[in-house]
């Protein structure tokens, strides 16, 4: 039986999906990238650029698609989804790698003591109500003492003893303490180098100095504490009267440059050719202090009057 006819008809119906190249194109399926490392053919490039480029792109894309369709897939409502391997091309990150979160003081302590972390349930069983209630938050169990309608008062209690207030204050204090510890953990995580300590010292010294001269007598009649140092003011410093000529010239030039630079100028000086006439002053004089707009209006109305008189004649 001759099947060559069948094969030929099949080949005519379906075009091939294989790509013939000297060096097979490099495919990075993870990034959906194909790199064809064959040198560009000068003849076809010169003959017809667009068709040459399209042919190159088609061959490369065919190689990529072939690789993609041979990957393991999972079905989905939108069609098969290919599972991609991690990319082989390396491109730089846009942000540094995330740093691991530094352990809190408790976590370090727990690690040293070998304490296992227990997940605390958010709900807690209430024996009286016979249901699960919040540990904290709305109708929380931690507010039980404040909300109950009768409270035991100690025998030796004060007349003004308010058990609700005491319970509430204790709860608020616990919250505040926890918040403070959290802040300290964050601060510790950011790290306190000697540099920041120095800065802090300087800051405290400055505050002390400010408070010492912030009385009516500017600190003259205040009680001096033991071991307190005398305040030192800022000493004025002057440049030496005699300086080398080039240093002086450089300083002057720097000053002139600064004055000439446009960076900090809010209003431009008038140009050199205009400097003979001070336009603003002239306008003010001509309009008798009413401004340029009024001047323009005046001149327009004058010319209109002139035209009108010509017509009437």
């Amino acid at each position, binding site marked *: 039986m001759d099947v060559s006819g069948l094969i030929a008809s099949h080949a005519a119906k379906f075009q091939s999906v294989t790509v013939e190249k000297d060096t097979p194109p490099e495919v990075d399926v993870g990034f959906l990238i194909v790199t064809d*490392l064959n040198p560009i053919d000068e003849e076809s490039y010169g003959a017809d650029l667009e068709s040459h480029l399209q042919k190159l792109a088609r061959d490369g894309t065919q190689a990529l698609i072939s690789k993609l369709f041979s990957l393991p897939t999972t079905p989905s409502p939108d069609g098969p989804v290919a599972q991609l391997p991690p990319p082989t091309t390396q491109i730089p990150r846009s942000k540094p790698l995330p740093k691991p979160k530094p352990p809190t003081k408790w976590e370090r302590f727990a690690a040293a003591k070998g304490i296992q972390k227990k997940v605390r349930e958010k709900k807690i069983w209430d024996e009286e109500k016979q249901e699960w209630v919040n540990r904290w938050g709305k109708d929380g169990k931690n507010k039980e003492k404040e909300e109950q309608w009768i409270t035991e008062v100690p025998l030796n209690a004060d007349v003004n003893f308010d058990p609700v207030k005491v319970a509430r204050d204790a709860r608020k204090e616990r919250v505040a303490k926890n918040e403070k510890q959290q802040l300290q953990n964050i601060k510790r995580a950011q790290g306190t180098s000697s540099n920041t300590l120095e800065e802090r010292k300087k800051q405290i010294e400055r505050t002390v100095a400010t408070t010492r001269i912030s009385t009516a007598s500017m600190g003259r009649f205040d009680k001096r504490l033991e071991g307190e140092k005398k305040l030192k003011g800022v000493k004025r410093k002057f440049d030496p009267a005699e300086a080398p000529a080039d240093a002086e010239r450089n300083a002057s030039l720097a000053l002139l440059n600064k004055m000439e630079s446009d*960076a900090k100028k809010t209003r431009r000086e008038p140009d050199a050719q205009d400097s003979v006439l001070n336009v603003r002053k002239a306008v003010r004089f001509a309009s008798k202090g009413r401004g340029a707009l009024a001047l323009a209006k005046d001149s327009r109305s004058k010319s209109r009057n002139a035209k009108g008189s010509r017509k009437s004649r």
Partner: protein
Amino acid sequence: MLRTVRPKNARSKRALDARAPKEIEDARTAIFVKGTHAGERVSSVMKDLMALKRPHCISFSKKNDIHPFDATTSSSGSTSQSSLEFWAAKNDASLFVIGQTTKKRPHGLTLVRMYDGRVLDMCEVGVEEHKSMDSFKTPKPRPGNKPLMHFASELFDTHPRFIQLKSLLISLFNGEVIDSICLNGLEHVISVSLSPTPAGLTTASPETTTNLNLPKVHIRAYTTQLLPSGTRVPRVELTPMGPALDLVMRRHQDADTETWKQAMKRPKVVKKDIESGLGKKRKNMEVDEMGDLRGRVHVGKQDLSKLVGKKMKGLKKGSGDDNAMDLDGEDAWDIGGKKKRKIQT
């Protein structure tokens, strides 16, 4: 004293978390900046590139006095690099495309890549020819669709300038790591090809070559058609979609080695992390001890008013009442009964 910055509410906390460094990064947001004079051709190129980059792009359509290769201060008193850094921090973007036309360098397009809020590397190209996307009357891919990319020339593996260009273009269009892709969603391919390599351009002395003898870059975009081939793998046919760009290489700035080394650091991703969503937070899914993926689904609140209960004669409103008129044929059990009541009164 060190100030500890803490988000005040959940929304700002989420916003800060979204900006925080991640192990597996999202796609880079690109800012398209127009220089003091962009010109028609460059504006059109930027519009087309933005159409390909959408939705991860921001357009700065006003004129900006920016010259990324010059270290001098502009008239506003800040250097171009510091402006770029400021914009990058404000917009959480790490890529810039700057269009600028000058007499000396007409139709210039600069790609700037950032790392950790600072400029990593830059590459300037000149647009020689451009055919816009609108001039091809073909269907365009949907925004956000991942393109395939094709690079053709041996120089993309050997010449440092073209290695950098390839890396920049990958960062621009395809730099996001994904773990799966829908095969029906492959709609377009961006092809980057070079003109034939000139004889003098050997790999021996890449530094000494000037921009003049570097080959041209042809960027084309095509839509793909997948035709049946009788096998599992389909045959691909391409249709030009636009834009079509012919570029020449101009100035560039390489990354300094230390920063580059830091930027190329890879996270150690273990198999467990891959299962639990590749470093990204995956909610309501967990892998149990048997290795099965389990999920929790929120089904929303049930609408009980639409519930059709069992109809019983005894519960009918009008039953037993001898002068009651059954006005609305009792089609459904109406719990609200508003309509009925209105008719009866």
